[in-house]
C-alpha cells in the first residue's frame, strides 16, 4: 500500500541492470557465506549509473530496497547492519571508482533541445489561419449585398472571441485536461454564435444566407481555435482541405447554374460541419477522471486576461478589415495581402526561435548575469528581425507612389508581429494600445471620415501606412524592453 504524492504523479522506478549472478534470497533465508567483496564490487558496478545521479545515500537505499536488498539481505550478503549502511558504502565506493576512472555506464549530461524551430508545424498552423481567408474569397460572389454585421462584423467578433476562448482553453487544458478545454471552447463558441444569431435577427438580416455566412465564420474560428489548443492542427487541416476545394468550386461557379452553385454551397456547409465535428471530437471522449483534476471553470483573473486577448484580437481584426479588406475586389486574389500571408508564419517561426533560444539559455546557464547577457544577445537578433518589416514598409511607403497598399500591408504585418510579442509576454494593455489606436485613426481617416474630407484611395492607404508606421516605432521600443526582461519568461 503506497501512494504517489499529488505533487509528483510520475513514478519511474529505477531498475538495476540484470543481477549477475541472480541470488534468489528466498525467505526462509539461511545465512550463506558468499564472497562479500565480489558481491560488493558487482553491486557497486551495477549501481554506478544511479550513484552518479544520486542526491544522497538515502536515495541509494531507496533504490536498493526497491530491488530487493533489505536489511536482512544487507546483513547476509554484505555483512552490514542495514541497507542504509550498505547504501553509504556503495555511494562511497562508486565515487571512488569514478575518481579512479573505472569504466561504467554513466549517463551523459542532459541534452537540451536545440534552437531549430519546427518549420512544418508552423506552416500547418499558417495554413489553418489561411482557411477562413480562402473560404471568404470563395464565398465572396455569394455574400455581396449582405449587411456588414453578417460578414465583416462576424469576422471581427469571431476573431476576438477565438483569441479569448483560445486563451481560456489553454488555461483549462493545463489544469483540467483536454476534454474540459474542448468542452469550454465548444460551449463558448456555441453561446457566442447563438448571441450573434440573435443580433442578426434583431437587425433583420436576410434569412438564411446572412445566418449561414456568420455561422460559417464562427465555425471556422471555432475549428481553428480548438485545433491550436489541443495540438490537433494537422488532423484539422486535413479535414479543412474539402473546405478549400468547395470554396474554390464556389469561386469558379459564381456565374454557373443555380443547381451547381447549390452543390458548391452545400458541399462547403457539410465540409465545415465535418471539420467542426472532427475538431471537437475530444469533447465526446471520456472525461479526465480522478482526484487530480481541477474543474474546467477558469479563474476570474483568467477571464479578465481572456477579455484582454479578445480586445487585442478585435483590434487586429478591425485593422485587417480596414487595411486589407476595405476597397478590395472580392473576386480577385488580393496580391497586396501576400506580405501578410507570408509574414504570419515567419513571425511565428521568429518567436519560436526566440523562445527556444531563451529556453536553452535557462536550461544550461547557472547564473543570472550570464543569462542576462544571453538574453540581450538573443533579443538583439529578434528585435532586428522585427524591425525588418517596419523598415521595408517605411521604404515602400516613401518610394512606391501609387502602391501604398503594399507598404501598408507590410506595416500591418509588423504591427501584428509586435502585438503578438507583447501579448505572448502578457503585456495585453500595450498590445491593445498598439492595435487599437492606429485602427481608430485609420477608421477616422478612412471609412468613418467626414463626408467633406476627400481622399483618393492611395492617399488613404498612405495615411493608413503612416499611421501604422507611427504605431510601430514606439512598439519596437516597448518590445525591446519586454523581451529583455527576464521576468517575462517566468
Amino acid at each position, binding site marked *: 500500500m*503506497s501512494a504517489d504524492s499529488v505533487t509528483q504523479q510520475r513514478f519511474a522506478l529505477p531498475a538495476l541492470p540484470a543481477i549477475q549472478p541472480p541470488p534468489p534470497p528466498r525467505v526462509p533465508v539461511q545465512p550463506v557465506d558468499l564472497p562479500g567483496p565480489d558481491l560488493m564490487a558487482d553491486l557497486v558496478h551495477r549501481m554506478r549509473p544511479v550513484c552518479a545521479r544520486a542526491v544522497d545515500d538515502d536515495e541509494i537505499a531507496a533504490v536498493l530496497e*526497491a530491488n530487493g536488498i533489505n536489511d536482512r539481505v544487507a546483513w547476509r550478503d554484505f555483512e552490514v547492519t542495514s541497507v542504509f549502511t550498505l547504501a553509504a558504502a556503495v555511494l562511497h565506493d562508486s565515487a571512488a571508482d569514478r575518481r579512479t576512472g573505472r569504466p561504467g555506464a554513466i549517463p551523459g549530461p542532459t541534452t537540451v533541445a536545440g534552437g531549430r524551430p519546427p518549420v512544418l508545424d508552423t506552416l500547418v498552423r499558417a495554413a489553418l489561419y489561411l482557411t477562413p481567408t480562402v473560404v471568404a474569397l470563395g464565398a465572396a460572389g455569394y455574400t455581396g449585398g449582405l449587411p456588414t454585421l453578417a460578414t465583416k462584423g462576424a469576422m471581427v467578433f469571431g476573431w476576438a472571441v477565438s483569441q479569448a476562448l483560445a486563451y481560456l482553453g489553454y488555461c483549462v487544458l493545463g489544469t483540467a485536461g483536454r476534454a474540459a478545454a474542448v468542452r469550454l471552447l465548444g460551449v463558448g463558441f456555441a453561446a457566442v454564435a447563438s448571441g450573434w444569431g440573435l443580433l442578426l435577427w434583431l437587425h433583420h438580416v436576410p434569412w438564411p444566407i446572412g445566418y449561414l455566412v456568420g455561422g460559417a465564420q464562427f465555425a471556422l474560428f471555432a475549428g481553428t481555435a480548438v485545433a491550436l489548443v489541443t495540438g490537433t492542427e494537422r488532423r484539422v487541416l486535413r479535414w479543412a482541405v474539402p473546405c478549400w476545394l468547395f470554396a474554390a468550386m464556389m469561386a469558379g461557379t459564381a456565374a454557373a447554374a443555380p443547381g451547381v452553385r447549390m452543390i458548391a454551397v452545400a458541399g462547403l456547409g457539410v465540409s465545415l460541419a465535418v471539420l467542426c465535428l472532427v475538431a471537437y471530437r475530444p469533447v465526446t471522449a471520456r472525461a479526465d477522471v480522478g482526484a487530480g483534476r481541477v474543474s474546467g471553470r477558469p479563474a476570474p483573473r483568467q477571464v479578465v486576461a481572456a477579455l484582454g486577448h479578445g480586445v487585442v484580437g478585435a483590434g487586429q481584426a478591425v485593422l485587417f478589415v480596414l487595411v486589407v479588406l476595405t476597397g478590395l475586389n472580392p473576386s480577385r486574389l488580393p496580391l497586396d495581402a501576400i506580405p501578410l500571408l507570408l509574414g504570419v508564419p515567419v513571425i511565428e517561426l521568429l518567436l519560436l526561435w526566440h523562445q527556444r533560444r531563451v529556453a536553452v539559455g535557462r536550461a544550461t546557464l547557472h547564473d543570472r548575469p550570464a543569462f542576462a547577457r544571453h538574453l540581450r544577445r538573443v533579443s538583439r537578433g529578434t528585435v532586428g528581425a522585427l524591425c525588418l518589416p517596419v523598415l521595408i514598409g517605411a521604404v515602400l511607403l516613401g518610394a512606391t507612389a501609387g502602391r501604398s497598399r503594399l507598404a501598408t500591408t507590410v506595416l500591418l504585418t509588423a504591427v501584428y508581429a509586435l502585438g503578438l510579442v507583447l501579448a505572448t509576454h502578457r503585456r495585453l494593455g500595450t498590445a491593445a494600445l498598439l492595435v487599437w489606436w492606429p485602427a481608430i485613426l485609420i477608421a477616422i481617416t478612412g471609412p468613418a471620415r467626414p463626408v467633406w474630407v476627400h481622399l483618393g484611395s492611395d492617399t488613404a492607404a498612405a495615411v493608413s501606412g503612416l499611421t501604422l508606421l507611427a504605431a510601430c516605432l514606439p512598439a519596437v521600443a516597448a518590445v525591446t524592453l519586454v523581451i529583455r526582461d527576464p521576468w517575462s519568461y517566468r
Partner: protein
Amino acid sequence: MAIPIEVALVNEGTYPYAPGGVSTWCEQLVRGLAEVRWHLVTVVGGEPARAELALPANVASLTTVPVWGPGRRPRHRAMVAAYRICRGMLGDSDADRADFAHGLRELATAPVGRHPLYGLPLADLLLDAWSEVTRRGVRLPRLTLGEADEAAVHLEHATRPLAARIPRVDLVHATANGLSSLIAMATKWRTGVPFVMTEHGVYLRERYLAAAEESPGVKAALLRFHRALVRLAYRQADAITPVSSFNRRWEIRHGADPEKVHVIPNGVNPRRYQPLAGEPAVPTISWVGRIDPLKDLQTLIEAVAMVRRRVPGTRLHLAGPVPAGNEEYAADCRRLVTELRLTDAVTFAGPCASSRDAFAAGHVAALSSISEGMPYTVVEAMMCGRTTVSTDVGGVAEVVGDTGLVVAPRDPAALAVACVELLRDTPRRAELAARARARALEHFTVDRCVGRYRERYLALTGHLAPTRAVPVATRTGQPADVAVDTPPLSDGPDAPVLSDGHDAPVLSEGPDAPALSGGRAA
C-alpha cells in the same frame, strides 16, 4: 461516560476519492471509531469530481485542499520566510533545520486561504540559497536557471496546503508524512492541536523513487524539500504510527523519537474473510490488486511461465482494476502474456467485489510488488486460509512471518520456485494456510487495529495515560526498536519469528481500550 472527540483525518489524494489500500484503511478507521466525529481533509491535485466511497454518518465535514490550479496571492510577500525555507532545506546542520522550521511556521501562521509562496520570485531565492549553501561546503549539483524555475513551481504548489482551512478539532490524524502532515503541523502551530501521523508507505522513500528521472538540480531541490519537511514532521508529530517496522527504520533514521513511534499493523474483518473450504481443480495462482507498475505483474507472469514447465497446466488468476493512467501498463502485461503463449493460462478477471472470491480461485496467493507498505491483500489471503508467496518488500515479511514464502522482488525464477514448491506439496500448503489464518486472527484483525488507534486518540487528547516505546535487542543481536504499550494497555511484546530467524519487530497488542463515547465500532 461519553468522551466527545473530533478528529481531522488528512490524506493525500485517496479517501474518499480513490479506492485503494489507504482508502480502505481510512474507511475502517472512520467506520470503526463510530463515536468520533470525523472531519475528512483530502489533499488533491485539483478539485475532484466526486467521492468514490460513501461516507458514514459520523463524518461531519469533507474538505479538499487542491495543490494545483489557480493560485491566490498572499497579502504579504513573505520573502524572508521563503528564503529561510530554501536555505534551510538545502543545508544539513541543525541551524538549517531550525531555519526551515522557522520559515515554514511563519508561512503557516499567515492568514489562511492564501497560497503563501505564490507570486514570489522563488526561483531567484532558490538560486541565492543554493549559492550560499554550496559556499558553506554542502554538496549539491549545479542548478540551472531552468531547473530553478521548475523546482520553484513544485515548491510553491507543495506549500499550498499551508493555506488549508480545516474545522476546529481536538486532534489531527495525518495518514502520511509530507503534504498531509504539513496541514497537521500548520494546525498544530496555529491552534496547539496535537497530531498523529500514520505512514503506510515511507513517504520520503517514495519521493526518492519518484524523482529518479528528474534533472539533477530539480531532483536535488525537490528531495531536499521533502527531506526537510519529512524530518520536521517526524519531530513535530505527537505520535507516529507506521503500519510496519519496515517504515519505522526510515522514520527513526530521519529524526523520529523512538518513544513516539508505535507500529500499528493494518487489520481486516475476519467475518468478511471466512476460511475457504476447498481448492480449485486446476493448479492456480491467484493475485489481487490494482494493475500498476509497482505491483510488477510482469515478474509474476514470467514466473508463471516457468511454473508451467514444472507444474503443467498451472493457471494465473489476476483480479483487480486498471486505474486511470495505467492502461499502457496493463496493455504491456497482456502483451507479455501473449508473447509467453500464456493466453489460455492467464485470466484478467478485472475488479472483484471481494478479494475472497479471487483467493478462492487459487491454491496460493501471490504478491509480486516492488514496493509496499503493509498490503491488505496478503492479510486478506491469510485470513481466508490461503498461503502466500510474496516479495520481500516493505512490511510483507513481518505480516507473513512463517506462514508463507517470501522471495526477492524482480526475481521471476525465485517466485516460480516458491510457487512450484507450494503447488506440489499439498500437506505443506494446508499447514501453512492454517497457520496463516491463525496468525491473521491473532495479529491482524480490524478490531485490534482500530482499538490501538482509539488508545492513541485518548492518550493524545488527555483522556488516557500516554504509552512509550523502548528499544529491545533481537536474538541476533541486531538492534530493533519495538513499541511497547505501558500497562494496563499492553499485554507484553509480541514478536513473531520471521522466516530468517530474526525477531520480527512487530508491536504489542493490548486489550480493547474504552470507547470514546460509549459506542463500539460497527
